[in-house]
């Protein structure tokens, strides 16, 4: 194999790291050649982020050895990592919104440099690599794609010999991804190694030279990425055959279930997004997918669809043609609209309460019609315990003990619980935001199947997701949200991923030729 002829840049042996009882990395071996694009593949929680944080000095390993250019190094801080030529682009950016681009870059530089010179160098680099940003803009005013460019420029300023990228494409449109890959390949050919973390298989095959697969904190394989298939990678990563989703034949009704008309909502704080003229409708028996990059108004849209915030005008939202725009979230629950916000802990659940109490959180209103006034005043522990037990059983929620705290559940199990809690209310309309975000494949498949089943049984579903694959896999109709504006709704058979990608980036579908991304 070609690998042996290559010079090794970074070699890590037997890296281990645990947090309390949880073992994040266990005896991981990996070596990255010079100029190589090396992918690190694994499910959520497989230990990818921990490993690269160790390489970048954010975390210290419990044991293990790291060599760079055959010299043993101990990377005690990101400063040391940068001195050793390692740069990193974080998944959840490490930028400071209240500072300008140039200030952000300035404080990450280890050498002494004047502010004006930083601005000049940014301009120079951004031209050279086609990473256009305005150095004097506040980071809070940038789009997600621009923020990533800032992070990349910040790394390039240091002339890195190894660039670590943690899930860089999860926030990009397909077009932006293409551009990014171009840059990465150019970087690699100029001699810079790239460690590329992802759980997306196609990307890895397209981009990487070699791929190391992590599973439950262990490195289980290192494979030549040019000579493998997505299926092989997937099965190695998950360790078992992946169950396919069962899509039954549609029995679509033409009856409109839920409708939003000419909805405007000004942002209520500076970092928020204003919603402009939102129109959407979803029929019974149908899944409407709302695609879009995170931070384009999904949170704001969700708040107003759920009823956490009321519309100004009652006619702006209709359920079965009846205006409900000014009803609150509990009144909508009673009408049969169930929502799940994006944030699992602290929004959909309270981490330091038990599951039965978390059941009560969205369940208590059921008493108000049926029982005496005194029952309405109480927090009914027994009823919610019974209800929560049912939810746990019906949705295969794995708990460490009976009635644990929400914080004791893994992400996937907590999400199954949240979904089950909504389904237990037997909704007519279900509006779910990012239901499989950060969830392991097993739970994600189960959750997706539930959504399909729900629409099969004649309910209307709105699925807000930034996972394009998921949108295409589940939806009958698709629309895109970009900067608080919702596109028109397309039938899934009439639109391609490229079109959706363009809409996600704010381009019209008609105007399909690629402009240089500014």
């Amino acid at each position, binding site marked *: 194999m070609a690998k042996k002829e290559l010079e090794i840049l970074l070699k890590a042996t037997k890296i281990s790291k645990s947090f309390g009882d949880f073992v994040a990395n266990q005896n991981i071996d990996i070596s990255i050649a010079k100029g190589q694009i090396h992918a690190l593949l694994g499910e959520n929680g497989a230990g990818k982020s921990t490993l690269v944080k160790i390489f970048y000095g954010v975390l210290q390993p419990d044991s293990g050895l790291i060599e760079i250019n055959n010299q043993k190094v101990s990377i005690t801080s990101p400063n040391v990592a940068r001195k050793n030529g390692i740069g990193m682009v974080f998944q959840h950016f*490490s930028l*400071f919104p209240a500072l300008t681009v140039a*200030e*952000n870059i*300035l*404080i990450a530089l280890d050498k002494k440099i004047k502010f004006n010179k930083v601005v000049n160098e940014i301009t120079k680099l951004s031209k050279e690599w086609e990473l256009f940003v305005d150095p004097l803009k506040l980071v809070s005013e940038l789009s997600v794609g621009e923020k990533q460019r800032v992070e990349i420029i910040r790394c390039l300023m240091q002339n890195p010999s190894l660039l670590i990228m943690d899930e860089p494409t999860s926030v990009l449109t397909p077009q932006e991804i293409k551009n990014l890959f171009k840059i990465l390949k150019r970087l690699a050919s100029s001699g810079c190694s790239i460690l590329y973390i992802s759980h997306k298989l196609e990307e890895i095959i397209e981009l990487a030279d070699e791929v190391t697969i992590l599973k439950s904190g262990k490195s289980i394989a290192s494979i030549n990425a040019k000579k493998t298939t997505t299926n092989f990678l997937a099965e190695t990563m998950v360790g078992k055959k992946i169950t396919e989703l069962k899509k039954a034949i549609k029995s679509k009704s033409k009856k409109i279930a839920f409708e939003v008309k000419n909805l405007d909502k000004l942002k209520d704080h500076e970092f928020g997004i204003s919603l402009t003229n939102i129109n959407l409708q979803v029929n019974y028996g149908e899944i409407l997918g709302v695609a879009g990059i995170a931070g384009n108004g999904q949170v704001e849209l969700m708040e107003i669809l759920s009823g956490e915030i009321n519309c100004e005008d009652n006619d702006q939202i209709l359920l079965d043609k009846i205006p409900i725009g000014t009803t609150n979230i509990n009144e909508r629950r009673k009408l049969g609209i169930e929502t799940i916000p994006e944030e699992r802990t602290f929004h959909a659940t309270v981490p330091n309460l038990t599951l039965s109490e978390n059941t009560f959180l969205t369940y208590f209103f059921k008493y108000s019609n049926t029982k005496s006034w005194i029952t309405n005043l109480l927090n009914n522990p027994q009823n919610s315990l019974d209800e929560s037990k049912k939810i746990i059983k019906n949705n295969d929620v794995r708990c460490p003990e009976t009635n644990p705290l929400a914080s004791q559940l893994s992400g996937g199990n907590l999400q199954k619980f949240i979904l089950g809690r909504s389904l237990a209310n037997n909704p007519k309309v279900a509006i779910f935001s990012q239901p499989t975000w950060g969830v392991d494949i097993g739970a994600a498949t189960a959750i997706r199947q539930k959504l399909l089943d729900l629409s099969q049984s004649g309910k209307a579903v709105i699925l807000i997701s930034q996972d394009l694959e998921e949108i295409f896999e589940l939806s009958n109709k698709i629309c895109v949200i970009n900067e608080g504006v919702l596109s028109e709704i397309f039938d899934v058979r009439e639109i391609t991923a490229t079109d959706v990608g363009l809409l996600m980036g704010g381009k019209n579908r008609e105007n399909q030729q690629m402009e240089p991304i500014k």
Partner: protein
Amino acid sequence: MEALILTIIATSIPLLLAATGELIAEKSGILNLGVEGMMLSGAVGALGAVLWLENPYYGIIAGALSGVLMASIFSVFTINFMTNQVATGLGLTIFATGLTGLAGAPLVGKTIPSLPKIEIFLLADIPIIGSILFKQDFVAYLSIAIIIFISFFLKYSKSGIILRAVGDDHQSAHSVGYPVKKIRWYASCFGGMCAGIGGAYIPLVLTPHWSEGMTAGRGWIALALVVFASWIPWRIIVGALIFGGITIAQLVGQARGWPIPSQLLSMMPYLATIIALTMISGRLSKNNSVVPSSLGKPFFGSQ
């Protein structure tokens, strides 16, 4: 008139210093509600030092050190043990009230010499302006120097930008490789130092003897001043002078026998604080980028 302006300036200097120190701490993400306590410690420290060493300048140093000591206690708990900053700050004020009461008991009834005025050559001879601006004591000059310094520090120096970055997003600051806890310790101690000197100024210039709780809520007003100034240093000068003016106005009113009960006049600084906060907060809630995003949140380190 000239004397009036001088007293207004003198009254506003403790507020100015304490608020400036707190501003730096808050910019780094530390909300220290113990300013009142740190000022009290500065006051008692200064009194003790001057009585012992008989030189008012030692009072400034002792005040600064006492303030830093109190800020260190606060920092150990909030930064290292990650306790709730609001509750710990309250605790610090309660603690310092007790401690200074104890330490100040032997000082009751003793009077200290006041801090001398320093005339700046020639400039001090300018009519009116000269005696107002260039015939001040050391702390007055120092406080203006500190304000000018931190304005530039926050805006143009790399360390200043890093300080703001830590207050903006401590997790990112940690990822980029800055020692969040250490930087907060420095900022918090700077806040303590300023509050301590501000507290020391009270016995050194305003009332030269000890009484329990002699800061009379100035620490709390200083906290309000930071909000009033929307975290912009030079605006603290304006705010402090306004509050100094209100405080003096009520004293003048009492002295001249205005037909308003003295207690109602004495309420003015406190009511003015509430009014100022109300006016500013409405605006801040719309434009919240000036408030450091990590303010008051404990930093747990990285997972």
